[in-house]
C-alpha cells in the first residue's frame, strides 16, 4: 500500500493519481473546527500561564543582580544623564580621562528630563541601571532607590584623607545627597551622591529696562514694598514686571517656600508639614496673599500661569520683562539667547525682617554610583577626578554653571559669583527633616495659579489645602496602623 499523503497541502491533489484522490485530507470543516477549538484551548492555556506569571513572578524580582551580564574585566564606565547643555563638555572630559587612565567613559544623554526620569525608574525595576546615573526625584524617591540597592554609600570614600573629598564641596551640595542618622526614610546614614554642580534660585533684573523706567540699575529692590514700587514704575513705562515659568508648578512651590521661611520661619514651616500648624494659619494666608498682591498690582507677565520656564527665559532674555525668578543655570541660557543682555542677580525682596529669607539651592545635579555595578571602584575614581579643581573649573566655564567644588569659586564669571555668594542662605525640601505630601504640594501650586487668575482668594486656598492635608494625614495614619 502506498504511503498516504498526510500533508494537508493544496499541492497534494495536484500531482496525485486517481488512486490517491481518495487519500486522506485533513482540512474538512470539521477538522478546521477541531483545530480552532484546540487552538483556543492552547491560547487560553498560554494566556493563563501569562496571568500566573504576572501575578507570581513579582517575588523573583528581588533576586540579585545578574553578574554575568556585566563583564568584570571591562574598562568602561557608563553614565546616564539628562543635561543637554553639558553633553559636549562631558564628552570632552571623557576623552581626557580615557587618555589619562585608559578607561573609557561613555556619557549617554537621555532628554528631556521627564523621559530621563522614567527611564531611570524603569531601569531600576529591570536592574539595568548603568555604573553612574543621576536621579531626578525628591528625597523620598531617592531613599527608595537606596533601599532597593541601586545607590552606593560613598561615606567611606568621602571620609578618606580626613574628608578631603567631602570638604572640597559646598556643604549644601553634600546635604542634598546625605541621609542623617535616624532619618525618617529608614535609610542607612551616609552620603549617596556626588554633586557635579550647585545652583540656587534667585531673582534677576534687567538693568537696561530699569534705566528706561527711571530706576537705579545698581540698586535693585530689597524689600517687598520696594519691589512693588519698582513694579508700578515699570508698569507706567509700559514694561512687564516679573516673569517666571509658573506653568511648571515646582517654581511656584519654590517661591512659596522662600516667603514662608521669611514670614513664619523654618520651625513653623516644618511644624505645618508635620501637621501641627494648619495651613489656615494667618501666616500662610499672608504667603498666598503675596501672589494676589502681585496679580492685583499687574506685576506679573501676561500668561505666567501657563508659561514654561523656557518661555519665561526667552521673555527675560528678549527684554520683555524686567524681573525674572530663575535659577543660576539661567546664566548659560541667557548667554545663548542674548549675549548682550545687561542684567544682575538680586536676592528675593524680603517681606519681613523677623526671619531670614531662605532660597532653594544646593546640589544642581548629582551623580549616583550604582551599588550593583561591577565597575563601582572605577566609577568612584572617575567621580573623584570629575570633581577635582581642574575639571570643575573646566565644566563651570564651559557651561556657566556653579561648580560644586568650592575651591573653584574664584575662577568663575561675576554673575555666577553673585549666585555663589548666597549659597549659605539656601535650603531645599530634600534636606528638610520633614516632607510634604505630593497631593498637598500639587493643590498648593495649582491653587496659587487660581489666585493669580482671580479665581480663588488666599483664604479659600488655605482652607482647601488644609482639607487635603487632613485627608492625607488620615490616610497616613491608617497606613501606619
Amino acid at each position: 500500500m502506498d504511503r498516504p499523503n498526510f500533508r494537508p497541502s493544496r499541492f497534494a491533489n495536484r500531482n496525485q493519481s486517481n488512486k490517491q484522490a481518495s487519500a486522506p485530507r485533513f482540512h474538512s470543516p470539521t477538522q478546521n473546527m477541531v483545530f480552532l477549538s484546540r487552538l483556543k484551548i492552547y491560547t487560553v492555556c498560554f494566556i493563563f500561564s501569562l496571568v500566573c506569571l504576572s501575578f507570581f513572578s513579582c517575588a523573583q524580582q528581588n533576586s540579585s543582580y545578574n553578574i554575568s551580564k556585566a563583564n568584570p574585566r571591562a574598562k568602561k564606565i557608563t553614565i546616564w544623564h539628562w543635561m543637554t547643555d553639558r553633553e559636549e563638555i562631558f564628552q570632552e572630559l571623557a576623552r581626557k580621562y580615557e587618555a589619562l587612565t585608559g578607561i573609557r567613559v561613555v556619557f549617554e544623554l537621555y532628554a528631556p528630563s521627564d523621559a530621563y526620569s522614567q527611564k531611570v525608574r524603569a531601569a531600576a525595576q529591570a536592574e539595568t541601571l548603568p555604573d553612574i546615573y543621576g536621579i531626578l526625584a525628591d528625597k523620598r524617591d531617592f531613599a527608595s532607590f537606596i533601599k532597593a540597592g541601586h545607590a552606593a554609600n560613598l561615606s567611606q570614600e568621602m571620609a578618606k584623607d580626613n574628608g578631603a573629598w567631602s570638604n572640597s564641596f559646598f556643604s549644601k551640595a553634600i546635604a542634598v545627597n546625605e541621609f542623617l542618622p535616624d532619618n525618617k526614610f529608614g535609610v542607612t546614614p551616609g552620603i549617596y551622591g556626588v554633586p557635579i554642580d550647585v545652583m540656587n534660585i534667585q531673582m534677576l533684573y534687567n538693568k537696561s529696562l530699569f534705566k528706561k523706567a527711571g530706576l537705579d540699575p545698581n540698586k535693585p529692590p530689597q524689600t517687598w514694598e520696594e519691589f512693588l514700587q519698582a513694579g508700578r514704575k515699570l508698569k507706567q513705562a509700559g514694561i512687564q514686571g516679573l516673569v517666571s515659568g509658573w506653568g511648571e508648578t515646582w517654581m511656584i512651590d519654590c517661591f512659596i517656600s522662600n516667603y514662608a521661611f521669611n514670614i513664619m520661619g523654618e520651625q513653623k514651616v516644618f511644624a505645618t508639614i508635620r501637621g501641627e500648624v494648619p495651613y489656615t494659619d494667618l501666616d500662610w494666608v499672608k504667603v498666598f496673599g503675596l501672589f494676589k498682591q502681585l496679580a492685583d498690582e499687574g506685576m506679573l507677565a501676561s500668561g505666567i500661569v501657563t508659561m514654561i520656564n523656557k518661555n519665561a527665559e526667552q521673555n527675560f532674555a528678549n527684554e520683555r520683562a524686567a524681573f525674572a525668578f530663575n535659577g543660576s543655570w539661567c546664566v548659560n541660557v541667557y548667554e545663548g539667547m542674548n549675549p548682550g543682555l545687561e542684567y544682575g542677580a538680586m536676592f528675593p525682596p524680603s517681606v519681613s525682617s523677623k526671619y531670614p529669607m531662605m532660597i532653594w539651592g544646593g546640589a544642581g545635579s548629582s551623580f549616583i554610583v550604582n551599588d550593583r555595578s561591577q565597575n563601582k571602584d572605577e566609577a568612584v575614581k572617575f567621580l573623584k577626578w570629575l570633581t577635582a579643581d581642574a575639571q570643575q573649573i573646566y565644566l563651570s566655564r564651559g557651561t556657566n554653571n556653579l561648580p560644586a567644588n568650592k575651591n573653584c569659586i574664584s575662577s568663575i564669571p561675576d554673575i555666577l559669583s553673585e549666585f555663589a555668594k548666597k549659597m549659605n542662605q539656601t535650603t531645599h525640601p530634600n534636606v528638610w527633616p520633614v516632607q510634604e505630601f505630593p497631593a498637598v504640594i500639587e493643590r498648593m501650586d495649582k491653587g496659587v495659579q487660581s489666585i493669580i487668575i482671580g479665581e480663588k482668594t488666599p483664604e479659600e486656598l488655605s482652607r482647601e489645602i488644609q482639607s487635603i492635608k487632613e485627608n492625607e494625614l488620615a490616610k497616613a495614619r491608617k497606613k501606619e496602623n
Partner: protein
Amino acid sequence: MNWLKPGKKKIKINPAMTDKIPETAVLKRKMKIARAKSYLENFSFAFPAILIFSVFYIYPFLKVFQLSVCSWNGIDAFSFGKFYTGFTNFKEILRDGIWWRSMWHAAYITIIALTLQNALALALALACDKEIKARNFYRVIFFIPPVLSEVVVGLIWQWIYDGNYGLLNYALNNFGLSNLIHNWLSDPNTALTCVAIVHSWKGFGWGFIILLAGLQTIPRQLYEAAKVDGASSWQIFRNVTIPLMIPVFVLVSILTILGSMQVFILIYTMTGGGPGYHTEVPVTRILASMVASSRFGYACAEGIIFGLVLLVLSFTQKKISERVKQV
C-alpha cells in the same frame, strides 16, 4: 469512504479488507501522529502573533490590573503581597473631584471635535468629492495638519494665542477688535476651548480622508437617478448621501471619541493642564499621579476607569448608530 474522518466517529472498515486489520491499526496511529503534526504546524504559524500580542498587549494589560490594587511607588522592588491594598485606589478615584473634572474636560474637547471637527471634515470631503479644479491639491493641503507633530502644532498655536505677541491678538487689533485681546491660554474661560479648537484643527484631516473615501463608494447612478426624479441638492444629501454614509459616520465618530478623549500632547505643550486645573484631562492626571506623586497603583486604577469609560462610550455610540441605521 469516510474512513479517515477525524473526531470521535468510528472508522468504517471495508469487509473486504478485514484481513488487513493490523495494517489499519498502524494507519490509525500514523493518522494520529499526522493530525498532531498538522495541529502543531498550524499553531506554529499562529504562535508568533499570539506571543507578540500576549507579551505586548495582554501581559501589560494584566499588569495594570495587578498594580491598580496596589500602593506602589514605582521604585521599590515590587511584591504583590506587600503592596496589596484592595480596591482603595478605585474608591479614592470615585471621590476625586479633580479626576472627574478632567474627565469632563476631555468630554468637552470630544464634543467640540464631534461637531466642529467632523462638520468641517464632512464639508471639505463633500467639496472635494465634486468635480472641482485642483481637488488633489486640496486633499493634500487638508491632510497636512494630521501629519504634523503634535508638539510642533502645540508650540505654534501657543505662540498664536500668546497674550503679548500672539498672532491672534495682533489680528484682532488690526480688525478693530482690541477689546477682545487677552491671554487666551491663561484665561480659565477660554483656555479649554482654545485647546479644543486646536485639537479639532489638528484632527479634521483624518475624518476628511475617511469621509471622502466613503463618499466615493456611493454609486453615481443614485445621484443621477435622484436628479432625474427632481430631487434638490439638500434632498439628495439627506436621502441618498447620509443613509449610505452612516457606517462611515460611525467609524469616524468612534475614532474621534477615542482620539479626543485621549488628548494629551497638545495640552502638555500648550497649557500643562493649567491654569489651575482648567485644562487637565485624564491622561495628564494619570501622568501626574505616576510621575509627580509616584503613585503607580493609583495611576493604573485611573487608567482602568478611563479605559472602561471609553469602552462604554464606544459601545453606546455603536448601538445608537445601529438604531439610527434601522430607522
